[in-house]
């Protein structure tokens, strides 16, 4: 049964993607229907799969002597992420029915979206590292295709290219770590790596651990690879929701959470993870404070919230990170889709031109505020519980200064979230914008997500049960929902955090009274250059393109020179073999 469900949950979106593609762009209503049906069926299957979680592989496909077996392991971590990807993904697809109506290239759009969802599910379910890598690369390719979806817009193409190049750095890290693990263990199985981590020589294990950290940081847009995510905002808005909430960026968090038990003992690895999360969370929150593009504010907030999850893993809180991942997926999808209906309606993303839209779009305003409250960490929404859990883990297991910075970040989050809400929905109308009400498909997705934002924290007990019973190496304690609630409400960390959040909201209120929301002061030049990392990226790209330009001279295309190269290479191989033997 579990084997059938696992095949379905990967197969359904992929079959759907091919059908949508083959249907052709002339039959657009058929394409909409197929995409929605395929993604909703996937979501239902993924929810059923939750009941069949187990630590053992349910599908084994032998691949010959050198590759071992392709296995699919529906353990707690995998099935919970599968459910998030499938459910949030299907809501993004439903939302697209309104958002993408009338687009000429629906086939390409839905093909990439469904293929993306299937690849993400394959990534988390795969028990073979080599196939994790394959799925990982498919998600990178799909994200590139979707970010550059409007391929007649040079900014979109550049953003997609940037995302592809930076996430490739992560792909190389994952591949290098995988190959070193294979050299040390003779197996690509994830479970073998977790079981026999102590048997690997310390240097090799450290190499694997840090390669995987690079892979995760690049994929989840963490420091120092965080620059691609804000530039990926040229994508259609449902895609932003998909990338930020359901697929793509969760893969990095998944990788860290999956291999945490193996790398825990590597010296300074947990500290590095913690620092990566800390720096990302702070830099991104500061950038969000002065950004003037609605989607960029949300993008920075994603980097910042992912930073909280990475920080939690660094502090040893795998459960806390996964809980926040769940909450974040729901409220960030809600925020993006609500922002999408605002953008779709008024035709601009510039906060300086919006204002006073709340009276015209009350439904969107209400759901957006629900998402914003969750992002800011206001009780009793899901973002509150998970963020408090992370801060509590941080207070217990990391240094006090790290906790202090994260607390400051929580205050910043509250500030920029409310700044965004005021700027879009309240205050005076800064410019007269034409608007129209959100369509029914949009309302369905937004309504479901808004309800989810209120209730997903109630799933804590279930998530905890899944993780604690099916992950033999992670040592996650069993804790029920009631215990969580009492622990959080009685912890001093919660009250600190609430005070800081209240200060953030209050400061935002003060600024709103004075209409002082634009102009970043000393922060502006730093944020414009992405804290210097854009120039770093630029330097690396320049280095490669210049050296490639120089190396062009060696490619004469003349037969004799090519033969000389072949013979030289052959001699080199012979010499190496002779020296080695």
């Amino acid at each position: 049964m579990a084997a059938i469900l696992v095949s379905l949950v990967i197969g359904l979106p992929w079959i759907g993607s091919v059908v949508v593609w083959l249907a052709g762009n002339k039959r657009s209503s058929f394409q909409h229907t197929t995409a929605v049906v395929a993604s909703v069926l996937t979501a239902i299957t993924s929810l059923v799969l939750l009941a069949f979680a187990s630590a053992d592989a349910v599908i084994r496909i032998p691949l010959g002597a050198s590759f071992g077996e392709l296995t699919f392991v529906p353990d707690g971590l995998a099935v919970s992420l599968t459910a998030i990807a499938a459910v949030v993904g299907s809501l993004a697809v439903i939302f697209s029915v309104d958002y993408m109506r009338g687009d000429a290239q629906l086939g390409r759009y839905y093909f990439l979206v469904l293929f993306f969802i299937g690849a993400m599910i394959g990534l988390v379910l795969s028990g073979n590292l080599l196939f994790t890598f394959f799925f990982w690369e498919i998600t990178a390719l799909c994200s590139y295709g979707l970010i550059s979806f409007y391929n007649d817009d040079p900014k979109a193409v550049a953003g997609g290219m940037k995302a592809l190049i930076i996430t490739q750095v992560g792909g190389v890290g994952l591949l290098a770590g995988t190959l070193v693990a294979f050299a040390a263990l003779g197996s690509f199985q994830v479970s073998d790596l977790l079981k026999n981590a102590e048997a690997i020589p310390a240097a090799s294990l450290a190499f694997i651990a840090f390669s995987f950290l690079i892979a995760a940081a690049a994929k989840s847009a963490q420091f120092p690879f965080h620059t691609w995510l804000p530039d990926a905002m040229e994508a259609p808005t449902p895609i932003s929701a998909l990338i930020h909430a359901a697929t793509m960026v969760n893969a990095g968090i998944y990788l860290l959470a999956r291999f945490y038990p193996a790398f825990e003992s590597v010296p300074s690895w947990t500290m590095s993870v913690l620092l990566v999360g800390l720096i990302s969370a702070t830099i991104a929150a500061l950038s969000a404070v002065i950004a003037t593009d609605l989607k960029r504010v949300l993008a920075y907030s994603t980097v910042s919230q992912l930073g909280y999850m990475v920080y939690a893993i660094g502090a040893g809180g795998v459960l806390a990170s996964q809980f926040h991942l769940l909450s974040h997926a729901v409220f960030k999808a809600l925020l993006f889709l609500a922002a999408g209906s605002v953008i779709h309606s008024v035709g601009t993303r510039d906060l300086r031109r919006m204002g006073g839209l709340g009276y015209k779009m009350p439904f969107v305003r209400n759901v957006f505020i629900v998402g914003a409250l969750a992002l800011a960490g206001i009780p009793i929404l899901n973002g509150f519980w998970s963020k408090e859990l992370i801060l509590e883990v941080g207070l217990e297991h990391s240094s006090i200064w790290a906790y202090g910075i994260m607390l400051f970040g929580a205050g910043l989050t509250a500030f920029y979230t409310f700044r965004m809400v005021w700027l879009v929905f309240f205050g005076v109308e800064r410019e007269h914008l034409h608007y129209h009400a959100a369509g029914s498909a949009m309302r369905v997705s937004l309504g479901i997500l808004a309800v989810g934002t209120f209730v997903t924290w109630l799933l804590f007990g279930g998530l905890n049960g899944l993780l604690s019973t099916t992950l033999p190496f992670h040592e996650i304690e069993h804790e029920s929902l009631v215990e969580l609630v009492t622990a959080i409400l009685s912890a001093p960390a919660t009250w600190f955090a609430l005070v800081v959040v209240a200060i953030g909201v209050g400061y935002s209120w003060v600024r709103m009274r004075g209409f002082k929301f634009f102009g970043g002061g000393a922060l502006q030049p730093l944020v414009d250059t992405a804290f210097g990392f854009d120039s770093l990226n630029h330097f690396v790209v320049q280095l490669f393109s210049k050296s490639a330009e120089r190396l062009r001279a060696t490619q004469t295309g003349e037969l004799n020179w090519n033969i000389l190269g072949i013979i030289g290479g052959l001699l080199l191989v012979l010499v190496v073999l002779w020296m080695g033997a």
Partner: protein
Amino acid sequence: MLTPLNVILFGVVALLGVGFYGLLITRNLIKVVMVLQILVKAVILALVLAGKLSGNMGLGISTAATVIVADTIVAVVGLALAVQVRRRFGTVDVPQISTLRG
């Protein structure tokens, strides 16, 4: 030392050497086809030798026969192309052809 096997091995290496040297220095398209033929002859000889060494003579010879057929086609097509190139460009000099373009 001078066993039949060693003689054949020497022959393989010598043919390979001649072939690669030819490819390295020649500019004439017809000569390129010729030295490619020499290289393929080295390969055929090596296949028969490998069959003998591994005690799988039949496999070696049949593979060699297949290579002979394939390489005849290569020679025929290569020479035919050379004739066409000569008609079209008035030269069979490889670097000149690649700079002419069209």
